[in-house]
């Protein structure tokens, strides 16, 4: 061991030993020679012969010196350093080549690094939770509106806890909203009400103070609050003295007990976590015993040794037993079901398709830029053939030449990677804003060592690929090339299969990218053209929740709230330019999230038919006009529809078609129904339909409008509330005066989502627009690189064939014919590329089907358009070298 270390050290110092050691060696060898010569003379040889004999037995001084030098230092390192110096020198000499290659690589590597950092942050990185891979998210769903995630009730969770052995612990989490009273403002905070075991099960620790524990469960304990890391930073500026202080939530004093480590939440981002006692409702018998009172999210930790598969089987069995025992709670027609999803997957599920789409697009750009660089290298390789042959003739083995190329290519790709990472640094910021729409893990995105490792591996892989793409002079052919004594003239492209193949691949991949970009762009256009169902010229909306969720559930504070809403209506209505002010529980183009079973008088459900459900919305008489929702039949609400008068409703077209496909709905009666009404202050009385209004795209522009029941704002509970302000001037200019009026009437209430209807609509299109823009950007990048690729390869072919073209021209070929010949050569590649590209795009389009709207995955307009565009660009790229070929002067060409 000592011996190895000692000799390694000696070799490393040997690296830096310079000429002195070489002089020493020379002297030593010459001494040897002299002594041997002297000995030979002593034996009677002629001095000349003696010297010659001595030289012969030495076996070549230079070779020996080289062998000693190899032994003395680390020959590999010395060689690489020399290669590196040489590579930098050559690359600096061919500056144009270097720039093109580095820029091409930087674009590809930059796009891939940026997008990979997002994929890693959102989808791949292990969760910050202790043993986060053991966490599973349970989701109960049903058919129909708002059915994707209905949550769980406390009795259901109890059954799972008792019945499913594979779930080691179940964390309960009930999303809730409070108003946090600040010194001079009030804001809404989104919180989770959690059980005491929550943090233990989730595997999360505090960074300050403590977390809730089982002793914080139940009624009769003080309410406590744990801040999420994000909210602590955002609202309290990371002030650690916040722990132990009191804040006021919905008028109640709550102690801040700690700050949680950074962690993502699902399904929604939240600001803080509290024990249940803050909400009387959550500790009431209604909540704790009502099986249909589903307000809770469930995350479970797998029991030691249990797999997700086992948990799925067991949960399904327990769930089937529950459905058998409580038939009323699970409407058979609505197909209630429970899914068990690894928590990490659940966190990434909305982002997955989009991110893999972008990753795929970026990988395609990488392929195209790598292909381009390979082509450039190959062309340069032909120019360098002579140099490489000479090197081979001077004794460089092919491994040695390979290493030289590898070092050169490493310099190129690492330079590309460096610039690429700079590009990625800028791109990541844009991508984080995209990811935030899809995942609460967006703040985990960063260019960390794993991402940089990925980039480095990518660059090294590329360099290896590039080095092996180049053809080295074959051992046997060296002599013939050298003896020919001339630079070999390479023939037409047909001799360069690799280059042709790469050009075809570039075109094909560009077509796939363009087709994807085209489909996504058309999706976005289709989406913006969707009729929202409203006349939305200049309409401003704002939400002012005067009633807290807790008050809402208990039904108190309603009357005074309604008075204040009505004052807002009158005073905002008096502002100049305002034509109508509507009041409603939910703003147009937004989901109310409040959905109940609904039944029609005299209409029985068919066997197995799903229980109809409808969104609960409230509106004052002016709401429909202000929002621009057309009244199709009957009337809107009137001032006479008040508390105490006959209960009336207005329904939308979807519900009218569902209940009364053949009759006039006006005058018919409907009622809310279902067990869950018990937990609300809403009555299940019959209500008479007085009007039918048009459908609006409340669930997003790409969703089919669901059933909606409007009830008079004055007659029913004000489920939240907001203003819909129509003006004949600019809606945006009303923001300041309208907010001022509202602030005066409700000084402490939060004012939220102050947005014009146009902005709300745009919000629904924005993520798609970003998708389309990003993929289009990558597509355009690909096309540019591919066009450069085609032009470059053809230009190379032309210059290599200059001699041949000269001969053809002198034999009578005219310029047009030469030009056609080159065009044909490029055209053939273009055609093959287009055909394979369209085939690839057909496949790719069905993969991204889920991201499309209003466009068939194999939309002919897109495909034809893309093929024509690529064709046109391709022909343009062929044109330049073809013209150059036609301008060749045969006399000069042949003399050269």
């Amino acid at each position: 061991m000592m011996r190895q270390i000692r000799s390694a050290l000696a070799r490393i110092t040997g690296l830096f030993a310079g000429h002195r050691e070489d002089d020493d060696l020379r002297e030593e060898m010459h001494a040897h020679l002299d002594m041997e010569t002297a000995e030979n003379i002593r034996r009677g040889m002629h001095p000349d012969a003696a010297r010659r004999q001595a030289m012969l037995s030495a076996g070549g001084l230079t070779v020996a010196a080289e062998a000693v030098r190899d032994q003395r230092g680390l020959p590999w390192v010395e060689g690489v350093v020399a290669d590196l110096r040489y590579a930098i020198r050559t690359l600096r000499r061919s500056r144009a080549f270097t720039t093109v290659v580095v820029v091409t690589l930087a674009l590809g590597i930059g796009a891939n690094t940026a997008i990979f950092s997002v994929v890693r942050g959102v989808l791949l990185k292990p969760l910050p939770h202790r043993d986060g891979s053991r966490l599973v998210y349970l989701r109960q769903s049903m058919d129909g509106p708002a059915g994707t995630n209905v949550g769980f009730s406390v009795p259901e969770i109890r059954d799972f806890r008792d019945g499913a052995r594979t779930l080691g612990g179940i964390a309960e989490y009930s999303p809730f909203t409070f108003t946090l009273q600040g010194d001079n403002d009030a804001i809404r905070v989104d919180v989770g009400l959690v059980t005491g075991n929550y943090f233990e099960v989730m595997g999360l620790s505090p960074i300050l103070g403590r977390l809730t524990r089982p002793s914080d469960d139940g009624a009769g304990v003080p309410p406590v609050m744990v801040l999420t890391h994000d909210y602590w930073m955002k609202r309290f500026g990371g002030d650690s003295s916040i722990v132990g202080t009191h804040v006021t939530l919905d008028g109640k004093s709550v102690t801040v007990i700690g700050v949680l480590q950074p962690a993502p939440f699902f399904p929604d981002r939240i600001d803080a976590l509290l024990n249940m006692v803050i909400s009387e409702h959550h500790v009431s018998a209604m909540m704790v015993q009502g099986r249909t009172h589903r307000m809770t999210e469930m995350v479970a930790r797998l029991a030691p040794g249990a797999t997700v598969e086992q948990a799925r089987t067991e949960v399904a069995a327990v769930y089937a037993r529950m459905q058998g025992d409580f038939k009323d709670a699970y409407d058979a027609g609505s197909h209630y079901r429970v899914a068990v999803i690894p928590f990490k997957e659940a966190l990434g599920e909305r982002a997955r398709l989009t991110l893999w789409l972008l990753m795929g697009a970026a990988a395609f750009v990488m392929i195209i830029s790598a292909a381009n660089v390979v082509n450039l290298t190959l062309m340069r390789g032909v120019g360098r053939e002579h140099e490489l042959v000479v090197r081979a003739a001077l004794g460089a083995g092919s491994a040695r030449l390979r290493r030289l190329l590898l070092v050169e290519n490493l310099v190129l790709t690492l330079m590309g990677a460096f610039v690429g990472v700079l590009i990625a640094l800028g791109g990541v910021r844009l991508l984080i804003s995209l990811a935030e729409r899809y995942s609460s893990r967006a703040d985990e995105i960063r260019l960390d060592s794993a991402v940089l490792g990925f980039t480095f591996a990518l660059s090294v892989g590329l360099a290896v690929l590039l080095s092996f793409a180049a053809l080295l002079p074959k051992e046997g052919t060296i002599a013939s090339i050298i003896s020919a004594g001339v630079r070999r003239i390479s023939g037409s492209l047909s001799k360069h299969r690799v280059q042709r193949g790469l050009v075809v691949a570039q075109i094909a991949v560009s077509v796939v990218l363009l087709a994807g970009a085209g489909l996504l762009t058309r999706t976005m256009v289709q989406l913006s053209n969707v009729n929202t169902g409203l006349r939305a010229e200049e309409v401003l909306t704002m939400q002012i929740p005067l009633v807290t969720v807790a008050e809402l559930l208990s039904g108190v504070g309603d009357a005074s709230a309604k008075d204040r809403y009505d004052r807002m209506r009158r005073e905002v209505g008096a502002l100049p330019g305002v034509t109508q002010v509507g009041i409603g529980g939910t703003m147009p183009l937004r989901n109310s999230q409040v959905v109940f079973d609904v039944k029609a008088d005299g209409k029985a459900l068919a066997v197995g038919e799903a229980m109809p459900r409808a969104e609960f919305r409230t509106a004052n008489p002016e709401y429909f006009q202000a929002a621009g929702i057309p009244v199709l039949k009957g009337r809107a609400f009137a001032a006479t529809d008040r508390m105490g008068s006959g209960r009336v409703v207005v329904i939308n077209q979807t519900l009218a078609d569902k209940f009364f496909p053949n009759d006039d709905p006006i005058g018919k009666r409907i009622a809310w129904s279902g067990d869950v009404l018990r937990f609300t202050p809403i009555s299940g009385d019959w209500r008479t339909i007085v009007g039918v209004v048009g459908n609006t795209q409340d669930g997003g522009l790409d969703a089919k409008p669901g059933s909606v029941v409007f009830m008079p704002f004055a007659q029913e509970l004000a489920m939240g509330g907001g203003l819909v302000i129509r003006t004949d001037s600019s809606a945006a200019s009303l923001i300041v005066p309208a907010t001022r009026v509202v602030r005066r009437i409700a000084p402490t209430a939060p004012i939220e989502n102050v947005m014009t209807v146009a902005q709300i609509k745009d919000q629904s299109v924005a993520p798609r627009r970003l998708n389309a823009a990003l993929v289009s950007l990558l597509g355009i990048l690909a096309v540019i690189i591919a066009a450069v690729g085609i032009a470059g390869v053809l230009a190379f072919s032309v210059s290599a064939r200059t001699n041949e073209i000269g001969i053809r021209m002198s034999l009578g070929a005219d310029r047009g014919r030469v030009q056609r010949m080159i065009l044909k050569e490029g055209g053939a590649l273009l055609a093959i590329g287009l055909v394979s590209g369209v085939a690839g795009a057909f496949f790719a389009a069905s993969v991204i089907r889920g991201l499309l709207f209003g466009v068939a995955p194999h939309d002919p307009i897109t495909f034809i358009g893309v093929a024509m565009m690529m064709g046109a660009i391709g022909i343009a790229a062929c044109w330049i070298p073809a013209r150059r070929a036609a301008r060749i002067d045969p006399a000069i060409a042949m003399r050269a």
Partner: protein
Amino acid sequence: MADKLEVKQGTLALMILRTLEVLGPLHGYGVARRIEETSKNRLTLNYGTLYPALVKLEQEGFVTAEWRPSENNRRAKFYSLTAAGRKQLAREASDWHRTADLIAAFLAPRREEA
């Protein structure tokens, strides 16, 4: 020339160490001559074989080198054995003897044949 042998890998170091043990400090030429003589000229050593081996032994600390005037008053580099080299020589020699015995036993004509 058919009876000339190439020096086997690993045996050269042993020969050099042994030569230095027997003859004391010696220059490269002397080492080469001595090895050739001992092998009755069946081995030839060119510089490309000898000098890297000497450098390696020096790196491993088994020999040291210094410049001294040679017998014919020319400056030459003399190599001498170190304590570590002496130990290494003993170790390698005994290894070699054991290996040689083993191989000899293997290649010995079987009793029946004899």
